């Protein structure tokens, strides 16, 4: 999932200060799983904003909506019926959802979250990055451990000289991804795969090559 974290309340307050009627728009996708922008978080933020407005004597009406997904056009289109009189939107989706909503409605759209990474739930409340969307997945060779997202140097062939006793030179709290790859290859009896050098990543698919697109005629 895409992992996000709520922006500080002061930042949200600063975004919404000029408006008297705002829509808080959540998403039932990734941000619901990481508890940053689902129905529950929309509700908590809405009541917090309402309390702040009541305390300061400021008029504020809040519309609460949580879409199935903010990254799908049909769900974003369904938001229109909830926006009567709304002066601004605060999206609690990931950055993609915020932009998708902004592209459809002629209203100021603000982000309620900071989008962090593609990751997994290690245990409730703990998330770890596991994918950098490099566009050239080599997990089949690296025994299901991604060096691009889990090695500090993003080495496709490692480890570097900083690996020590299973830890990265960054510190004991950072496991060495390449040590994990070697350990897992060994446990699977596939240590020969370690000898396979990975070619440089496909530059055209890499994030640094500019905005990426995927066109699939079979889905049109």
């Amino acid at each position: 999932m895409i992992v996000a974290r709520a922006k500080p309340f002061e930042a949200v307050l600063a975004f919404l200060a000029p408006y008297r009627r705002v829509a808080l728009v959540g998403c039932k996708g990734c941000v619901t799983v990481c508890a940053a922008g689902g129905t529950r978080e929309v509700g908590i933020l809405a009541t917090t904003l309402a309390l702040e407005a009541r305390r300061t004597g400021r008029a504020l009406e809040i519309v609460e909506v949580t879409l199935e997904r903010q990254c799908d056009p049909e769900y974003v289109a369904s938001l229109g019926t909830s926006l009567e009189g709304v002066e601004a939107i605060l999206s609690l989706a990931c950055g993609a959802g915020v932009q998708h909503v902004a592209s459809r409605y002629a209203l100021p759209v603000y982000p309620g979250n900071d989008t962090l990474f593609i990751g997994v739930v290690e245990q409730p409340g703990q998330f770890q990055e596991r994918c950098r969307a490099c566009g050239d997945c080599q997990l089949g060779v690296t025994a299901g451990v991604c060096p691009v997202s889990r090695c500090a140097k993003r080495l496709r062939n490692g480890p570097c000289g900083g690996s020590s006793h299973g830890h990265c030179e960054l510190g004991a709290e950072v496991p060495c991804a390449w040590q994990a790859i070697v350990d897992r290859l060994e446990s699977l009896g596939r240590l020969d795969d370690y000898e396979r050098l990975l070619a440089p990543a496909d530059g055209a698919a890499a994030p640094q090559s500019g905005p990426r697109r995927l066109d699939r005629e079979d889905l049109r």
Partner: protein
Amino acid sequence: MPCAGRVEVRLILEAFLGGADGVLVLGCEDGDCRFQLGPQRARPRVALARARLADAGIAPERLELRGVEASNGARLAALVNDFTARIRALGPWTAPAAVPGTEAAP
């Protein structure tokens, strides 16, 4: 509500929106919960609600979580009376600051 562990953050905040000057969440004490995890579940939720109150500029001490045995009526009464007295001393959170030298409108 059958267990403090079921209390939602929004529900607590809405009690304030509904006019409460303070909210006391009463559950069982650790080790005394019929559902075992009630106090452990309630604690982070109440902590989050307190943080949200602080965000809204409302003193977080207006919200408390306390454990009390269901059979100990005397202790329950003492807890509630103590909390009520402290909230009363704080006054309403919605009250506008008094301006010295002015009188309230009739």
